[in-house]
């Protein structure tokens, strides 16, 4: 659509310079945390890594409209940047990966990549893919039943889009126009199986038509396009107009996980070409072209991020290990014979504590 507006794109979207610099910084921080955890994995400190590198632009941008303390998120295992944009700190993420005893996500009970936390309204995630999408729909249903102004967002990969629960979730959300945003981060591979062997028709967003909701495809390297789609989806949800499915075409810059080697199933030239679509330099170029980001500014930002990650990993590593004494606790919320402790219930619309 041609625009006569001569303002930079971010201004057209209602974002100030500070907002886009904040988004860029959030992407840098998530990438730095991710890279640091790979180093810690190589050093034997973290057992396993499942990475979000290449997804940061889409994640930061789609999470940006979400209201902390009000809205809810049901993310997936690559959602480091989403979780951090929605309130988790670098230290929270690294602590979860180190499985420390006072880790906010699970107290050392869950493997790396399974973060979340009641203080952030981020549902602690599990490993069977796609289950979280129904939880977001359930939260949206709860908000709709109660008349609360709450939006739930959930994210998942294109491989997960083939689970039956995704159909169940989108159909139900479509039937009742529930305030939920489905973000499919399509990186073209479900571990080793490419899109054309996973998704009939080649587009997850196209399925939205069948559920009576908008389906939007955005370039995951185009941060502002992702933001624009998410902002519109968030506004629609708040207006009671129902769900939106956003398919962000992103790149997976790393192997599926630290236990995978994508050279076994991807051509080296293909992997090399992915760097061209890395959202971090793409967004930096746009901000530079608009005079928002300067070399000095970027240098300062990167130094701050590095210091923040250093400090976060130092503090995370110093946290206490969990002990088996505690492993029998918090099985049930209600004390019953054989273990469990009482936890106050979540107030409606609030966090879990």
């Amino acid at each position: 659509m041609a625009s006569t507006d001569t303002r930079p794109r971010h201004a057209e979207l209602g974002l100030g310079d500070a907002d886009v610099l904040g988004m860029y910084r959030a992407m840098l921080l998530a990438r730095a945390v991710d890279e640091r955890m790979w180093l810690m994995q190589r050093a034997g400190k973290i057992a396993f890594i499942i990475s979000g590198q290449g997804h940061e632009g889409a994640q930061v941008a789609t999470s940006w409209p979400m209201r902390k303390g009000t809205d809810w998120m049901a993310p997936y295992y690559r959602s480091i940047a989403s979780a951090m944009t929605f309130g988790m700190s670098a230290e929270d993420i690294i602590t979860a990966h180190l499985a420390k005893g006072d880790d906010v996500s699970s107290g050392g009970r869950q493997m790396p990549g399974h973060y979340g936390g009641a203080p952030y309204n981020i549902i602690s995630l599990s490993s069977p893919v796609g289950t979280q999408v129904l939880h977001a729909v359930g939260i949206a249903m709860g908000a709709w039943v109660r008349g609360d102004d709450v939006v739930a967002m959930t994210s998942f990969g294109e491989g997960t889009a083939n689970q039956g629960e995704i159909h169940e979730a989108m159909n139900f959300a479509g039937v009742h126009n529930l305030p939920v945003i489905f973000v499919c981060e399509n990186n073209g591979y479900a571990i080793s199986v490419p899109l054309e062997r996973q998704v009939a028709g080649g587009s997850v967003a196209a399925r939205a038509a069948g559920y009576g909701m908008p389906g939007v495809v955005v370039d995951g390297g185009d941060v502002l396009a992702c933001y624009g789609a998410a902002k519109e989806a968030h506004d629609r949800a708040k207006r009671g107009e129902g769900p939106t499915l956003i398919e962000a075409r992103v790149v997976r810059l790393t192997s599926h996980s630290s236990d995978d080697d994508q050279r076994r199933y991807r051509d080296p030239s293909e992997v090399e070409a992915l760097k061209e679509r890395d959202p971090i330099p793409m967004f930096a170029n746009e901000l530079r072209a608009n005079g928002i980001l300067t070399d000095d500014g970027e240098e300062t930002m990167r130094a701050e991020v590095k210091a923040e990650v250093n400090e976060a990993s130092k503090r995370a590593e110093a946290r206490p290990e969990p002990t088996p004494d505690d492993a029998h606790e918090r099985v049930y919320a209600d004390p019953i014979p054989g273990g469990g402790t009482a936890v106050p219930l979540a107030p409606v619309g609030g966090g879990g504590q």
Partner: protein
Amino acid sequence: MAELNILEAIRAAMDEEMERDERVMILGEDVGRKGGVFGATEGLWAKYGDKRVLDTPLSEGMIAGAAMGAAVYGLRPVAEIQFADFVYPGFNQIVSEISRIHYRSNGTFSAPMVIRMPYGGGVHGALYHSQSNEAYFTHTVGLKIVAPGTPADAKGLLKSSIRDPDPVMFFEHKKTYRLFRAEVPDGDTVVPIGKAVVAREGKDLSIFCYGFMRTCALEAAETLAGEDGVEAEVVDLRTLRPLDLETILASVEKTGKALVVHEANRFGGFGAEIAAEISEKAFEHLDGPVTRLAGPEVPGVPFHHALEDWFMIGPPRIVDAARKLAAY
């Protein structure tokens, strides 16, 4: 006191809890305008509206998963699975998510919700409307499993389940829905989860049962008393998890003989757990082999009445098994 059948008692429990706590909502297939295929939610849609009594698509994964999301958010969903036989699309949500969210979040999230399921045979429902699948769920840590056998227990236990901070699977034997009426205490009376009840005192052997088997066991006990002079103690477990071992072991210590009865097939069934606990913890009190009477090892209840009768456990088979054990 009102005389209610089990279906009316269940409906009364939901009605009272919805009135008492605006966080309580019902969701499931046909639960709204129709009032449920068995009528359990009749009248509630008209009273509470179509959001709090919500008709869902045919989508058991959605029913379970969305109920969990709503529970984590702060509501108290009561989900109806139309038949226990149809719960399996929701199995992943129940076993991977609902049962584990509290533990895996180190206690910071909870899923206070109820899944009600009509189960059991004897109603010409064949393989896919008759299953007693409680053992799939009793094995799962994090769930509480309730299976009442009387109107008063159905009402009191459902009220407790709705108020419970943990996820509860509530098994309703569909043959008992309109089987008989009995007195149900008026007002806000709850029955605690995790407590068995001695339904009939006896000194010669103990019969452990739940759901419809309570009715069958009590009838069998009368026959045994009248024809054999054998006084059977009938223990209705009411809750399968957490299990009231104290009451079970006290009964075995008294009678020295244990007969465990359930409708589900025997192999790996819930009776195996009770038998093992008794063998481990009351061995020195036993005066006969811990015995299980359970459904046959076939994949489901066959349809034709002659075949269904062959499958079902009724009072005569309980009498036979009890006679053998009493004579041991």
